[in-house]
């Protein structure tokens, strides 16, 4: 459950203000996150001229908000994007909490182009309201004024939604801060290994343990509605594909056939999984599993390794990895079986693990670049590819739902960590677990 935005237009007219008050009843993230140490963020690169913005500490009328510093979360989100630079609090000339308390010229004088003010207030039924205003300091114009309402546990989500609105108003691209990621954490060495499937906010905070196993967990994939994860588990000492409701933990096995059961990817309509099956003969091919009917359709039939299927956003075709031409390359095939696959990648000796951008125009992949495995993005219309990462063992790229950023895993010394890079290559950050390694990040969809 997430906080529901109430547009500024509803707040200013008296009658619609009532709608805002009624919305107090809605929402609230259930307090489910484990008290596990959050991933630590390290910003690795940013744009040359980030947007200067002042995010003033929000007024807090109550202790019921758990002490969360909303402005700090917003600041972390915006600075983490690499496109904003926040004014340090000690340089703030005042601490307004409402738009009408802001003297634009004073804030312009601090070098800030924008100023954000807000407040957290208690309303009925133990709910909290998070209000904020975004002002242009040059014109004094109010660019956004919005209220998010929910339980105290949902204040962090509200803060991410504030960040989303600011990002969109200033950069013209929908923010993806109020989204979640799933990833695999691994710790220990054989036979005491421990694998965990974890869901957290996109900034690594608010972690929720989905599943834990002594045997490998792999390849998490979000359902389009953000309710389910599909993944691979070896808990039976054999590979199996499972789907699990993130909220309740309810799960079921959808494939544990002889040989490989791997690489599940949800179809855009949420009704099917593309997956890799090896069969008794052991040769991996791509199949489509209808989740309701359990009906299985074979998509490829080749002695090569065919794996890592992913759907184009329109659901009409899939991309996958195959070594049918001697080395791993990416191919496209129509979702209707029988069609001949078309090779998509030609640059270099190794291109694998494709993911398609939300608008269908770009393919992210792992590419072998001067002896190092790196993340590249290929423009599907022109065929031009750009390498975006700089590690030696980078893998598992996943697009943010706004298409502006990729999350992937890389090696930092002995440890696997998560990293992000903007698709223009200009900004990036790293997310490290306090111990053990984290890998295979999958960026979830926008929440409603």
């Amino acid at each position, binding site marked *: *459950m997430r906080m529901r935005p109430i547009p500024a237009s509803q707040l200013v007219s008296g*009658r619609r203000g*009532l709608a805002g008050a*009624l919305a107090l*009843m*809605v*929402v609230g993230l*259930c307090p*489910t996150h484990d008290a596990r140490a959050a991933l630590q963020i390290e910003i690795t690169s940013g744009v040359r001229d980030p947007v200067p913005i002042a995010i003033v500490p929000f007024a807090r009328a109550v202790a019921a908000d758990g002490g969360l510093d909303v402005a700090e979360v917003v600041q972390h989100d915006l600075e983490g994007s690499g496109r904003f630079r926040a004014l340090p609090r000690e340089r703030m000339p005042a601490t307004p909490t409402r738009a009408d308390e802001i003297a634009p010229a004073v804030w312009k004088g601090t070098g800030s182009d924008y100023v954000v003010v807000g407040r957290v207030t208690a309303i009925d039924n133990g709910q909290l309201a998070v209000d904020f205003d975004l002002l242009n300091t040059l014109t004094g114009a109010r660019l956004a004024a919005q209220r998010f309402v929910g339980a105290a546990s949902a204040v962090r989500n509200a803060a991410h939604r504030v960040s989303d609105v600011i990002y969109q108003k200033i950069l013209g691209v929908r923010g993806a801060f109020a989204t979640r990621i799933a990833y695999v954490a691994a710790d220990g*060495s054989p036979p005491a*290994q421990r694998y965990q499937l974890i869901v957290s906010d996109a900034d690594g905070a608010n972690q929720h*343990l*989905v*599943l834990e*196993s*002594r*045997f490998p*967990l*792999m390849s998490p994939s979000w359902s389009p509605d953000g309710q389910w994860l599909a993944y691979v*588990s*070896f*808990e*039976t*000492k054999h*590979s199996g594909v*499972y789907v*699990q*409701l993130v909220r*309740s*933990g*309810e*799960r*079921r*096995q*959808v*494939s*544990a056939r002889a*040989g*490989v059961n*791997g*690489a599940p990817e949800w179809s855009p309509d949420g009704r099917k999984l593309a997956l*890799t099956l090896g069969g008794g003969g*052991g*040769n*991996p091919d791509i199949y489509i599993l209808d989740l309701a009917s*359990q009906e299985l359709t074979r998509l490829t039939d080749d002695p090569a*390794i*065919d*794996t*890592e299927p992913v759907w184009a956003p329109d659901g009409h075709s899939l991309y996958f*990895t195959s070594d049918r031409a001697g080395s*791993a390359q990416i191919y496209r095939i129509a979702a209707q079986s029988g069609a001949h696959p078309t090779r998509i990648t030609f640059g270099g000796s*190794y291109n694998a*693990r494709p993911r398609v951008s939300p608008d269908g125009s770009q393919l992210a992949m*792992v590419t072998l670049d001067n002896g190092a*495995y790196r993340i590249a993005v290929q423009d599907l219309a022109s065929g031009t590819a750009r390498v975006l990462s700089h590690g030696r*063992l980078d893998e*598992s790229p996943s697009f943010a739902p706004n298409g502006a950023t990729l999350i992937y895993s890389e090696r930092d010394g*002995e440890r696997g960590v998560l990293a992000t890079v903007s698709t223009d290559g200009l900004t990036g950050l790293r997310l490290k677990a306090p111990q053990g390694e984290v890998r*295979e990040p999958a960026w979830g969809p926008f929440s409603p």
Partner: protein
Amino acid sequence: MTEEASMRRVMIVLLVAASVALGACAAKRPAAAPPAAPAANEAVQGSGAGSANAAAGADEEAAGPQAGLLATHLVYFDFDSSEIKGTGTDVVAAHAKFLGGHADTRVRLEGHTDERGSREYNIGLGERRAQAVRRALLLQGAADAQISTVSYGEERPAVPGHDEAAWAKNRRVEIVYLAQPLPPK
């Protein structure tokens, strides 16, 4: 629709959403969630922050034979290759002969890769290695019913490390003897 009516509709939507939210919270973490639907195979139960450590009794491991070449349960491979080579050929031949003479003995072939390349591709490569060993065992006297395969790809390295020395030890098939014999025919 009048604004009044539209207002009422907003209220209803909000109330429904609120009750759904409350219901969802109450239903959090059931002690043991039932399988949602008939699964293709045996369903595995999970719970909220479930653990997946089902020990499959039929797959318990045994030490297996240890005499001579049979003491070696590992077959190594070159990068991106599933060709059995060098001493690996002799090791596989020895196990094939043993299995041929012990028709109720079962092995599980576990294919592994080094960490380079994508994870699911490596699952495919590990399976290809396990299948190469399986075929060699079958050609030299073992029976199909004695052999199962699994590929762990790069997920369970034998040794840590990120250099060629570590990678060479991780590109392997492990011949794992199982405790439970095949039922007599």
